[in-house]
């Protein structure tokens, strides 16, 4: 599974980084979301989903079934 961020919508709340640092980080200049592991392993799915649901801007989405 793959997680995507819309950087035009992200405002740098960093809730994703707080909730799932294995997959999400923030850049040191703007503080916006950086997805370090877009194709995350199944064991992280619950945490990634939680991060997606907690984004106050709705900037994250999971593209189910997509592979690279």
């Amino acid at each position: 599974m793959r997680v995507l961020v819309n950087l035009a919508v992200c405002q740098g709340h960093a809730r994703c980084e707080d909730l799932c640092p294995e997959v999400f980080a923030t850049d040191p200049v703007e503080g916006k979301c950086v997805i370090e592991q877009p194709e995350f392993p199944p064991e992280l799915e619950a945490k990634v989903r939680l991060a997606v649901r907690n984004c106050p801007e709705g900037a994250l989405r999971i593209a189910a079934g997509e592979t690279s």
Partner: protein
Amino acid sequence: MTLLWQPSAPDHVPAELMVDFDFFHVPAGVSDPTEIWHDLVRRGVPRIFYTPRNGGHWVFLNYADIAEAYRNYQIFSTYQTPIPPMEPFPVVVPQGVDPPEHDVFRQLLAPMFTPFAVRRMTEGLQHRAEKLISGFKTDGQCDFVADYASKFPTSTFLDLFGLPEERLPEFLRLAHVFFRSTDPEIRAANFAEIYAELEAMFREKERNPGNDMASTIVNARDANGNQHRWIDILNCGFLLFVAGLDTVTNTMAYVWRYLAATPAARAHFRERLDDPAAFLLAVEELMRVTAVSNLFRRVTHDCEFRGVKFKRNDRLILSNTLANRDPAVFERPDEIDLDRKVNNHLTFGVGPHRCIGSHLAKREIMISLQEWLKQIPEFEMAPAQDELSVFAGAVMGFESLKLVW
């Protein structure tokens, strides 16, 4: 003072949307000022209503409408918004201007407030918290607001701006008058004094730059390689001085007041002192239920929003505490659940003006709580509290909070 924008007469407001509500007024016997907002919901007032008080303004009750107003700066501007109207009001960049103008100072400030930047402040914050707490720990009591919650963010401001800690009493006094005085003459003198301090600080940092925010702001260059306008530099300094003090102070007061009355919550945090992720999750719930800020917006043009007619220059209040208790968004909204998993609260706003200091504020509160619980694991409210200490307005909170242990 001449009003540049006359408050619009409410002839466009239908009678059924008129509600008498004064957001400064806390009725006798109300011990939690956020309750004046939740009372509106209990009274069943319209989800969008207009009150003639304080110069007249709209109030939105729902999360969805509040979030949309935050995002839609084309209609709901942050430019010249005080309620009651006070004009001319300093244009505090970047908060007081809309995109794209907003982006210039936002981009200048952003690197200083990212999670990356704030993580590097951790040790300094821990040291400050430890020192303050150990100063009164053996007394077995304190006025939490005076002895900790005002001092901590103000001394953090001094540190970030490269000012010596000896100036703390002066800045505490400036901040206290600014936030609590209602006397126009005292306010005007206080305003002038704050700006004189900022002027002196930026001039000094221009000559002798250090590794601090004031130096970064005053020595930054715009797209043409010039220093930013001096008035913008001053107003930006003013914004950073006022925005991070009263908000953090009163959020802390709310948090400690809740913990003092709730042994299970104290235990919850103590048990998670070695688990920062779980500790932070619980802090996030405290952020949801202790949203102390009410934000102002001004309508940019005559328009209709959610079926309601708005006129240019209408004022609007966005109350985060209302958004954060909306049952359409939060399960069991009135319950404090320190394990709450889905919690996209609006305490720091959303959209382009999302509170730039949110990561610093959260870290200040989290570190304060960790250091406090290590040194004072058990505490409660003192039997005698000053009932007059509650206040409402743009920021809601408590003048004092007496704790014992």
